[in-house]
């Protein structure tokens, strides 16, 4: 009886509008977002870490959503898979130069039409007008645009040397995530290997996201995956990471 009542309840429940629905994120990332998930129709700007941007969409692709990465020729598929992204549902469009100056916005718009999440690194040719148009497109289609900071930001940017749109300046972003601090563990003076990284992420934005939050994360955790971290580094050294080799 109870089962059938529950069944009836699901049948008569009001249909959730696209704007009200959330795409899931990994539990450790929930504190970063005001709705504890990626609100459909929103734009998230991530500065300073490609893996943070990938981690944002990992849970969504794992639960059946389609995503894509645009304009990220350096994206490491192995890292994406390690973070939990299902690569079958996460095609890559590494370069958009073939589409001319309007190629990047055209590709992102086409993908926002049909996919749930699009991770994109804007190139220099993108104008603020395009950004606003894409935000409107995402709002209309109920998809989520994750803008990854330009190549001047982050370690990869420093390595690649190029310059592009900084995510912090991306117009029309609902949520802004900025890596304030990053610290790797596991590597010493000539010994060990990179095992885990503690990130301090500052989350801000507009509307419900306007209140600034600081969240400490293991991305990746030394045991793999993403996990919350203690804010004070000295306390947060997990077991399994030796101080010095024997």
């Amino acid at each position, binding site marked *: 009886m109870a089962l059938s009542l529950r069944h009836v309840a699901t049948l008569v429940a009001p249909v959730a509008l696209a704007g009200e629905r959330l795409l899931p994120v990994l539990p450790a990332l929930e504190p970063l977002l005001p709705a504890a998930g990626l609100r459909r129709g929103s734009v998230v700007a991530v500065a300073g*870490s*490609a*893996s943070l941007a*990938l981690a944002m969409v990992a849970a969504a692709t794992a639960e*059946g*959503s*389609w995503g*894509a990465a645009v304009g990220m*020729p*350096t*994206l*490491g*598929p*192995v*890292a*994406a*898979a*390690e973070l939990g992204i299902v*690569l*079958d*549902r*996460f*095609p*890559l*469009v*590494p*370069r*958009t130069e*073939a*589409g001319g100056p309007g*190629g990047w916005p*055209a*590709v992102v718009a*086409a*993908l926002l*039409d*049909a*996919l749930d999440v699009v991770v994109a690194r804007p190139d220099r040719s993108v104008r603020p007008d395009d950004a606003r148009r894409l935000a409107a497109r995402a709002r209309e289609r109920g998809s989520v645009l994750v803008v990854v900071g330009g190549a001047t930001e*982050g*370690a*990869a*940017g*420093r*390595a*690649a*040397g190029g310059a592009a749109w900084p995510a912090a300046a991306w117009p029309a972003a609902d949520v802004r995530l900025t890596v304030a601090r*990053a610290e*790797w563990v596991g*590597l*010493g*003076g*000539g*010994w*060990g*290997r*990179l095992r*885990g*990284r503690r990130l301090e992420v500052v989350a801000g934005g507009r509307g419900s996201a306007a209140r600034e939050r600081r969240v400490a994360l293991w991305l*990746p955790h030394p045991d*793999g995956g993403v996990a919350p971290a203690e804010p004070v580094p000295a306390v947060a050294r997990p077991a399994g990471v030796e101080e010095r080799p024997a």
Partner: protein
Amino acid sequence: MSRPVRTLVVWCPDWPVVAAGRPGTEPVAVVAANRVVAASAAARAEGVEEGLRRRQAETRCPRLVVVGHDPGRDLRAFEPVAATVESFTPAVEVVAPGLCAFATRGPSRYFGGDAALAASVAARVDGVLGETSPSGAPTCRVGVADGLFAAERAARLGTVVPPGGSAGFLAPFPVGTLGDDELADLLRRLGIPTLGRLAELPVPAVLARFGPAGAGASRLARGLDERPLAARTPPPDLAVAAVLDPPAERVEVAAFVARGLAERLAQRLADRGLAATRVRVEAETEHGESMARLWRHDGGLTPAALAERVRWQLDGWKTTGGLSLLRLTPDEVRPDDGRQLGFWGGDRAAAERAARALARVQGILGAEAVVTAVLDGGRGPGERADLVPWGESRPGERKLGPPWPGRVPPPAPASVHPAPPPVEVVDASGAPVGVTGRGAASAPPARLSIAGGAWAEVTAWAGPWPYDERWWSGVRGTNAVAGLRGPNAVAEPGSRSRRARWQVTTTAGDAHLLTVEGGRWSVEATYD
């Protein structure tokens, strides 16, 4: 505008007469719609010409035998000839009954030159013709030239035009040979009697004055092909094309035509029990711009899907004029086993929506621009993933195989640089860090500068982790352990260099995977 393909043409004169089974010695005329379309040599000697009314022809030659025209009979009768020519090369294009062509590149080399090939083909075809109609013994003529048009002319003369000589060979021919009476008449009245004179005119001027037809004629006169010779393999032509006249100015109009074409193609394929896995969509504008793109889909392209792709292709293509030609050619076919591939589980509607959007992106950027990553065995972070173009068949469950010793341990870097930027790594005294013969660091790295950028302090490091892959190829680098020989060391044949990876973190909080080979450092990947 590619160089025209060197082409051999086999021409059987008066084919409708030969196909009618009449010996060439008696006066025969083949008549369609009360007009003579072909006549035998004997009839021509009596003054019977193509285009005459039946009554006129009979007046000129009272003992004329009149045969009704049957294109089907012409084609059927030509089949043995085409089959004979196919014994030289499988890629034979039947231009019309009585006329077939193939690209000579391979066969010519095999038979020892164009002339020898032409003689061999002529002898073989004449043999077949002698078998089918022993009386009268019709003969064929074979010509070789650059481009189909010139080769056809050469076949009529039975000559071999040397490579590059097509334009010169065609120059004395009258403009009437173009086969466009209206245009030829106009050209003659403007004082352009020969193809040579037409070829001298600047192409843009011809295009501006005479439109697409003139441009096509100009191409032919210059010894270029109006259309490329499509080497196809039997069974015959499955391509469908539509000439849009007047040219379509709007994409919607072209898309409507494309839909009809796609249905026709699907019908043709279905008749043969085939499904196209790759279709070439070609479009041309009245201004002579053309674009072709290959569309591939493992599940077989349905008419709707194909029509959609045509539309996206046209959408993504900025033209200056209306569309004058649309052609769909199945480039690769497979037996249709009725299988429609599903998309890797999950919500099917969402998968199809995604597939459409990705195909659309392919329309904007090209088919290779959208890829799916497939994890694979390997050691370096860049080697462990294959990028497969979207829609192409992906390697099945790939066994990651035996363990990969020397693999870079997880976590994997989020950024792998396709073109690793150079980096300078020095120790505390400012001397470059290298690898000793025993595979250890020559000194602890203290600072690094990526691509000539600002120096950053190294906070932690590990390495070197030597790795030595594809040692059997033996062409790269030097025999010394990496770092011991300078960048100017000359690679000795059969020698190789070992490479080593390092992980470093810097004060900026960055973590990099560095590679050193032959003393040169580069940033292979970044943990960001």
